[in-house]
């Protein structure tokens, strides 16, 4: 009898071992929740786990088998696959290879000390005290906290994109136009790596300074915009100046015409970095945390060469519309943003990265944009994959972001190389003088 119970016990233990080492075998309900993954209580499941082994690493997903993973795709991504996007099931990295150590430490150091006002402006312990850096809300409870993580959880202190090549893609997948621009940023607050940390003395009211200069084609070369964004961008609106080489003049521009498109492309100014205008323009609602497929953090082969040209080995589908790259499972928060005032959009549904799978830029990883009739209009996909180590710290950036106007069947791809924390830009390096210098 004793022997019998020993056998039963061993059998149960064996069964439990198989079940926990292959969570997919538990078919759905037994999968770890996103909250457990975010809380460090469970590892991130793979797509094999999620699909009970029906989809495996290396498999190609196209419109013939997309239904297998439909539950892990954004609506816009699913629509892209139906229109010809093909992706390979790629590889996720452990969080310590995605997030720099200094940022993990800053997040731990300041955990529980973030407070936020009704506009999504984050402070440290009390209103008015500037947030020193790190992710303010590792376990967000509301949609606004999810969004505030993006704005105040900036991993880098200075950034250079060189170039950002905007490719205009028509319905047949032809790249019929290109505009190149360089972009420089320096953060004046929430600094966690490049001294001075926290805030830069004298610039406490400014969140960042940015310079964008077009480098191609010649007709537009030298057109530049210098923008100042304030810490509380709901109270102090952006300040902007433009240099127009065709007129050799620096003029004041409105930096708050959010609904105009960027250089004729598909995204509008409010779509930059996901949601670029003040959060006070939107009502956020956290729908649910989800496992979502989106491009993998580290591409096995670089998609761009060192000059920013698309690597010749990159495969595309539907002309130049969809690069065929690796996608993998990320824990994400699904958030709905509804505009408070009249807007070209009826709503946006954003998929925002969850801690600790926090890439270095563009944490609004996927966004579906709906028109005022609530019909899906555009979709945004950040094509990660540009992963590198600098000064011993890992950085996870994107090679390309696309905005696809599904109604007009027109796409804009923003290909870019990104340097983070490499140049040490100071606030006085990004001024109207820089704007003039970069012009013609």
């Amino acid at each position: 009898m004793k022997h019998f119970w020993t056998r039963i016990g061993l059998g149960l233990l064996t069964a439990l071992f198989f079940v926990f080492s292959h969570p997919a075998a538990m078919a759905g309900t037994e999968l770890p929740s996103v909250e457990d993954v975010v809380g460090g209580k469970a590892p991130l499941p793979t797509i094999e786990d999620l699909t009970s082994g029906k989809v495996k690493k290396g498999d190609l997903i196209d419109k013939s088998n997309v239904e297998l993973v439909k539950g892990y795709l954004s609506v816009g991504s699913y629509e892209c696959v139906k229109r010809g996007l093909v992706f390979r099931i790629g590889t996720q990295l452990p969080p310590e290879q995605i997030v720099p150590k200094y940022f993990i430490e800053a997040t731990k150091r300041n955990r529980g000390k973030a407070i936020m006002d009704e506009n999504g402006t984050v402070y440290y312990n009390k209103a008015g005290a500037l947030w020193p850096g790190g992710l303010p809300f590792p376990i967000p409870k509301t949609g606004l906290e999810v969004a505030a993580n993006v704005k105040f959880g900036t991993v880098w202190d200075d950034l250079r994109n060189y170039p950002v090549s905007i490719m205009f893609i028509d319905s047949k997948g032809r790249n019929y136009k290109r505009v190149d621009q360089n972009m420089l940023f320096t953060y004046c607050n929430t600094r966690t790596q490049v001294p001075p940390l926290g805030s830069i003395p004298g610039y406490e009211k400014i969140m960042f300074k940015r310079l964008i200069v077009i480098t191609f084609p010649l007709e537009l070369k030298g057109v530049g915009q210098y923008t100042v964004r304030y810490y509380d961008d709901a109270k102090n609106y952006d300040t902007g100046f433009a240099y127009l080489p065709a007129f050799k003049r620096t003029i004041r521009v409105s930096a708050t015409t959010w609904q105009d498109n960027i250089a004729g492309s598909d995204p509008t100014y409010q779509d930059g970095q996901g949601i670029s205008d003040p959060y006070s323009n939107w009502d956020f609602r956290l729908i649910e945390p989800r496992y979502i497929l989106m491009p993998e953090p580290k591409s096995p082969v670089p998609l761009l060469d060192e000059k920013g040209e698309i690597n010749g080995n990159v495969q595309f589908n539907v002309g130049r519309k969809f690069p065929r790259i690796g996608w993998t499972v990320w824990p994400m928060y699904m958030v709905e943003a509804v505009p408070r005032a009249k807007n070209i959009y009826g709503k946006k549904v954003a998929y925002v990265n969850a801690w600790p799978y926090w890439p270095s830029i563009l944490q609004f990883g996927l966004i579906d944009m709906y028109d005022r009739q609530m019909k899906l209009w555009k979709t945004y996909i950040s094509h990660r994959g540009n992963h590198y180590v600098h000064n011993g710290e890992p950085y996870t950036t994107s090679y390309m972001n696309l905005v696809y106007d599904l109604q007009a069947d027109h796409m804009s791809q923003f290909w870019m190389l990104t340097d983070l924390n490499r140049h040490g830009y100071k606030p006085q390096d990004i001024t109207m003088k820089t704007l003039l210098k970069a012009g013609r």
Partner: protein
Amino acid sequence: MKAKLLGQKRVWLLVFPFVFVGIVGARADIRLGENFSMTGFVRHELGVHTASRNPNNDQDDNNSINLSRTFFQTEWTYMPSDMLKVFAKARLIHDQTEQLDDELKDYDAFPLSTPRYGSNLRANNDDDFAAELWELYAEVDTGDLWLRLGKQQIVWGEMIGTRIMDIINPLDMSWNLLFEPEEFENIRIPQWAVRAIYNVEQTAIPWLMDISLEGFINPGDISPTVYPDYGAPFNLFPQFPPFLAFNDKDRRGDEEFGFRAGARIGNFYGTLNYMHLFTDDYLLDFTGVSFGGPFGFMINMDAEYPTLDIFGLTINYATPSPLNTVVTLEGTYSPNQPYQDANAPLMMGDPIARIKDEATFNWAIRFDRNTFVLPRPTSAMRIQLQFSQAVVKNHEDVLGQNNSKIDSTTDTIVLMLAQPLRHDTLEPSLQVVYDLDGAYLIKPAVRYRYGNRWFFDLFGIGVGGSEDRPGRFGAMDWADEIVGRATFQF
């Protein structure tokens, strides 16, 4: 021999576009080395005359072509580090206007190529061909201090269609007056100068931001406005009577300079400016009568370019969403703006030429707004509305061009509309300049961009109105034209 040479030059300019179309790939600038790059364009521009004969010229019949020019422009940049940049803009220009239109008589299509102003870096002095270094300068950036040394354009001021603060460089109006789509970029004559900007650190006064100090000095490369030669389609002046003799007292060798300080307080940005300049247009000063010439006497006058002291102010403000309107104010005050003296003694019924200074105030206000006019998702329409005014203190004591009367105020409204379409590949626009005394300039235009390399412009110029004093639009109703430009950029 000359005709043969000119013919060879024409061949060059026809060949260049095809050579460059062939060699230019998909990349942006052409890399000539790690730090050395070149870019540029080939353009042909054709202006068809649509109005009556220019009364200032001695033509038998009306000309049908106002302009036919081919440009081969290259921009060379050497940038060994972020601290140093050397830039040159070289232009080869061939003008075929006179050859294509039999009604036009001989004229110099490039009157800027004068020995007197030889430092314009034109390698030749032909009537229909120019090879020149239009701009040539070096920039040094030491951090807070930025210097640009060389032949350059210096633009202060932000207004459209009018030059209130943008008066440092003179204009070359000899080929298409002020009608180019880029307004002054291609006609503002670069001059040898040093320009410096110093960024003031943001710590001392926290509420004062983006503080900068700027200055320039032109050590003597002074040239006047260049007008079309007599006989050119856009010639503005009838031939002077043969008994008038002018002694040009140009300012070559004299210094011009200016400085300004700029800063931002909250959402307001402003500059305070001072400039010490010389007028770009001459004023006449009677010096006496002498015997000689076909009429037995000559009236002698000095053509002078008097000193100007300009005090200026700019302020701009961006109203936030939902207004999203930028308001820009710009004004200058000159205590010594020179005019012809209305109270000078009379000679043959007109006051003799004397120069008199009179305090003059120029100002303008502009509103810029990007507004969705067409159903989205097209881009917003760029709308600019500007009011400008010139105020002359004792206007009755002074006279304008050709001894014309000067009003106490001259008021102008400018409306500029531009509507990018089809992902900015098509851009219709309209500029209307209305002189409230009853004259106008209308400039409808459209630009079409094909791919990355080609763009095409088609624009019309309509000028007229009842206000026909010299220098006003009503006096130029013969200048209407339709212009086409094809540009290949590389």
